[in-house]
């Protein structure tokens, strides 16, 4: 039996908005005079009892409308948020492509930013140095790699960010609609690269509301609606369910 790389068990996530009650004396006093000081907790549930398992080599599309809980799920899987209830277990390093070029500094060169970004994504010196030449090559930056990135075009920045995130050796890739950036030819190149990584045995989790990319690339699809998982299975069926709910 194959062990899952990610297993999500009865996951519940709540946000406690009472933490955002008036944080200054001024707003406290104005609220107090209006009689609107609330200390009761204001709990908002974002994900309700979601369970699924992801196996090595899966290419999963997670779909859902805005506010369905996709991004929260993504942040829970990558370990940014802690679950309120239930559990998430992961095996192996996850490369989050939630934001490309996280931590890029405009006054540093492309090369310096590769090291900075890779370490922020959680990779060590050896892994970064090993991937360095392929990162530079894929980014098509050539000699620009020695220039400060504040002189880069937005296309160049995206290319560099994407190149770093996909060339480091992470067994699981979390992709959050970042593919919507960059020009058409680079988008195509990104898709090709992600499919190539999938063929090489990586697990890909794609969070999107684009039915086409799920139908074309994924082998499995999860649909979230109103905090719950309403579908888990073949992309064709998932997409048609998702689309029927849209109208």
């Amino acid at each position, binding site marked *: 039996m194959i062990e899952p790389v990610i297993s999500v068990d009865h996951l519940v996530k709540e946000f406690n908005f009472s933490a955002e009650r008036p944080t200054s004396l001024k707003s406290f006093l104005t609220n107090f005079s209006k009689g609107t000081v609330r200390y009761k907790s204001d709990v908002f549930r974002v994900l309700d009892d979601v369970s699924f398992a992801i196996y090595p080599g899966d290419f999963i599309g997670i779909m859902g409308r805005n506010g369905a809980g996709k991004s929260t799920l993504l942040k829970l899987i990558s370990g940014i948020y802690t679950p309120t209830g239930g559990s998430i277990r992961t095996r192996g390093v996850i490369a989050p492509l939630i934001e490309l070029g996280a931590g890029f*500094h405009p006054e540093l060169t492309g090369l310096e930013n590769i090291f*900075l970004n890779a370490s922020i994504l959680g990779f060590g*010196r050896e892994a970064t140095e090993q991937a360095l030449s392929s990162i530079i090559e894929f980014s098509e930056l050539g000699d620009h790699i020695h220039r400060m990135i504040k002189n880069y075009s937005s296309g160049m920045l995206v290319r560099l960010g994407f190149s770093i995130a996909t060339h480091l050796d992470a067994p699981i890739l979390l992709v959050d609609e970042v593919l919507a950036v960059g020009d058409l030819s680079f988008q195509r190149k990104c898709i090709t690269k992600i499919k190539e990584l999938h063929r090489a045995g990586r697990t890909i989790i794609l969070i999107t509301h684009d039915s086409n990319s799920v139908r074309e690339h994924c082998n499995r699809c999860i649909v979230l609606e109103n905090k719950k998982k309403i579908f888990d299975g073949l992309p064709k069926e998932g997409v048609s369910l998702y689309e029927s709910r849209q109208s």
Partner: protein
Amino acid sequence: MFSFTNRLTLIALGFDAFCLNKKFLVFNLVNRNLKIKYRRSFFGYFWTILAPVMISMIYYFVFKVVMNVNRPHYLPFILAGVLPWSFFSQSISEATESIVANQALISKIPIPIHVFPYVVSITNFSTLFFSLPVIFILGMVSGVQPSPNMLWAFYFFGCLLLLSYSVGAILAVFYVYLRDLRHAIGLALQVWLYATPIFYDSSMIPPKYHWILFLNPVGSIFEGIHMSMLGSEGALIPHVLASLAWVTIGLLSLRVTYTRLRSGLVEVL
């Protein structure tokens, strides 16, 4: 060796407080800060020395020339206090805002939040470390005799680093919830500056108030730095122990803050 240190930190502090598993990240962030600080700056590192030297000269003028304080080697004495103090106060005020300032990163990438105050302390400490020769040189010019006691200075600087990190990292967490802290800290640091033996030492205050010095978390550290670097008289051991006690208190408070308040912090940001 490192796994042993890692385990020790985990047991003592409950989390990887010194980012031992994230050395490459810390290195890159410190490296970035230093590069940015000195890029396109003609005098570069010279500025970090010039500012404290200027401040010391001003205080020297006020206290020595105008008010006629009688203390041998008074200029290196002030500098040996002003340099570590500017490290301490700058680290604390920068570290306090560091978690909120990196909010965009923290809410998108899984990254241990205490890395940011830690990096602030390390960055500022590295500039302090490189300006130490200035105190030493000024001391020699002023006629201070070198002695093996000077090695104790490293101990006190180490304590100061640990304490600045603990205080800064704790305040950084509270700052997420309470933005008043920025103003309060500026004020508190002003008071703290004069409550710390920087322009004076214990020989200039009445003996019956000496105990107050030990209540100041950095009091003994600054007293110790003065004693070891300028070869002043007096027993060093009480200050060594008092510094150690305050560092222990600082690190334990860090442990409590981070093991209790850390989860759920990213959601509030």
